[in-house]
């Protein structure tokens, strides 16, 4: 296995995640796409970790951290979405433009 195959795959996933973040109108789906990006990052980390075979096992450890932080972030993000939904009974991001000019 060459390392590049994982990296390209991760890049592809990342790009798809970006696409999703940018075009989805439902807040939850945006968060979902963010998760996709984070997954891509994880693959990247672990691939590098396996490539380097370092003493500190940095790749896998950071992947674990990413997972933990992603979980926290999803929790808060969804809490915010729920609050917004309570206020406006809609999860449409386009309507959240109060900081408009």
């Amino acid at each position, binding site marked *: 296995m060459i390392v590049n195959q994982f990296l390209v795959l991760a890049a592809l996933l990342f790009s798809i995640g970006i696409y999703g*973040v*940018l075009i989805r109108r439902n807040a939850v789906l945006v968060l979902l796409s963010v998760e996709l990006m984070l997954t891509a990052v994880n693959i990247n980390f672990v691939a590098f970790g396996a490539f380097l075979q370092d003493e500190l096992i940095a790749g896998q450890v950071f992947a674990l951290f990413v997972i933990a932080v992603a979980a926290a972030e999803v929790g808060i993000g969804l809490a915010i979405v729920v609050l917004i939904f309570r206020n406006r009974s809609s999860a449409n991001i386009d309507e*959240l*433009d*109060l*900081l*408009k*000019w």
Partner: protein
Amino acid sequence: MTYLATSLLLYAEEGAEHALELSDGGLLAEWAWLIPIVPLVLMFAIVFVGKRLPQKGWELAEFSMLFVAVYGVALFVANANGGIHYEGSIEIARIGSLVLEWGWVVDGLSIMMYAVVGVVGLAVFTYAKGYMEGDIRFTWFFASFTLFAGAMLVLVSAPNLVQLIVGWELVGVASYLLIGHWWEDHENNAAAIKAFITNKVADVGLIIGVIIIGVTIGSFRFSDVLEAIANADSGLIQVAFWAGLMLFIGAMGKSAQFPFHVWLPDAMAGPTPVSSLMHAATMVTAGVYLLGRMFPLYQNELFAVDVKTIIIIVGALTLFLTGLIALVQDDIKKVLAYSTLSQLGYMTVAMGAGAYTAGLFHLFTHAFFKGLLFLAAGSVIHAVHSNNMSDMGGLRKFMPSTYWTFLIGSLALAGIFPLAGFWSKDEILDSISQDAGAGGGLVASVVLVVAIAGAFITAFYMARAVYLTFYGEYKGEGQPHESPKIMTYPLIGLAALSAVAGFANMPGIFTGFTDWVGARIIVMGDHHAEAINFLLAGAGLAAAAAGIAIGTRLWRGDRDTQAARDTFRIPVLYPLLERKYYIDDFYLRGIVNTTKGPIARAIDWSNTYVLDGVVNGVGAGAGFMAKIVYGGIDQRGIDLAINAAAAATGEAGEQLRYTTTGRVQQYAWALFAGTILLVVGFLIFN
């Protein structure tokens, strides 16, 4: 404090006969700084507490004079025993390389002055208590008088030219205050101002002279100046003529030489004690003192020898012309004033003839008999309540003490043997003749003749004064009475001194005064008489006797009125004398009125139109420029640019704000796009 070498032997070109061993005067000289300080301090005491004292401040003034007299005489005696030279000083300030010092000189010349100021001052202060009794400003009078005494002592104890000027100006102030003592009368004010301003005009010369010397040598100290002269300092040689001339002009003002003599007769408006002490004995002698201090400058061939001719001519003019005016005065004080001017002329002539000893000796004796004459005249005025001799006559019966003392003073002044004036006048005549032989040439010879003529005139007008005042019948009202003892005792004392002071310097017999006054670091090798020149002495005596004789003829007899007695008039001469040669008129019309009138108006015009015009023009111009800068440049140029920049920014912001849509996904898009661009950029350029 600086000490000079105790034993200084310096020879002037004249000769070495009087090389002296000079001691440093010991404790007496060390503490001599008290001499000017005590009167000045007591002056302040009189000002602050005088009114509350039993004698209203007079006791403080009298004490100060007593102190100075005792100290002065003590120093005089010590100096007579062996010459003293001491200079103490304290540095006050330093400006660059010029040092300002306050000090006190104790040498022959200064000691002589201390003694004179002290003794005559003591007599006058004592007299003044009686004379100024009940005066409206008794305390203030003595405060000013003490100020004067202190200032004069500052002047004569000065070791440097700057302190001399300080004392010089202070005596001028004191003179102004005292002449105008009775300022309720406007004339007294005018007289005081005239004295002050005439002196001030002459002081220009003094200050210029001091500056020239100080800058050339780099120091104002007398010892440094005299040393530079002894060392033939080349810088000083070049400026010496002008320095000497300028200093002499300053001396002319204070010592009232022609044409600066005009203030002295008018100064008689002040109280008589003032006239006696200041305008006869001390203040007016300050000029002669200065010439004595700077004597080597005028003696030395390389330096200001040429000024001597000017000095002697000025002195001779003063001597003769003012003596003539005394002949036509009715006011007894004016007679004495012109007499003082004439005698000052003698002293100046002596200095101009290179006769250091003679000039100072005449100063010495003159202080006594002229001081006496003024006090006696004051006594007469006090009794008669009038200054004019036309109100007097026959006072010999009523005021014997005054009469005898006045007579002794007059005889001394006329130069009758063996009174003081004879010896000092003879010394002067001798010196002039020596100068005529030595280098003065024709000028000195003419001056000699003038001086002898002056002796005649002196005796002439004094005889007139004595006869008109004390002989004949009293033409006034009531009975005049003798003055109180406090006034007559000083008269007697001064009369005694007038009688014996001459014995201090009898050529060939006892020339103590020459030695005493020559106790300085540079020996004043001067023309002084080695032995009595009988020819000259005889000539002087004969002239005086002639004056007395003719005077007796003319004025001894009595008439119905004083005016009838005083009928001797030389046709053209006397009116000219009465108008004082029209000099005062010339000064008033020519100088004063021109300055007050046209010149002042011209200056006012130029000030208003030219100076103020320039200033206003500059102001207006600045205002105009400001308007241009503000309107054109600032508002239209700079502000425009700034406002445009601000407007552009605002417009840009106005347009750019439409990018804040509030939509997160658009922001995210921008973020990603920007990041990718940056990454690409880094990849390409790295």
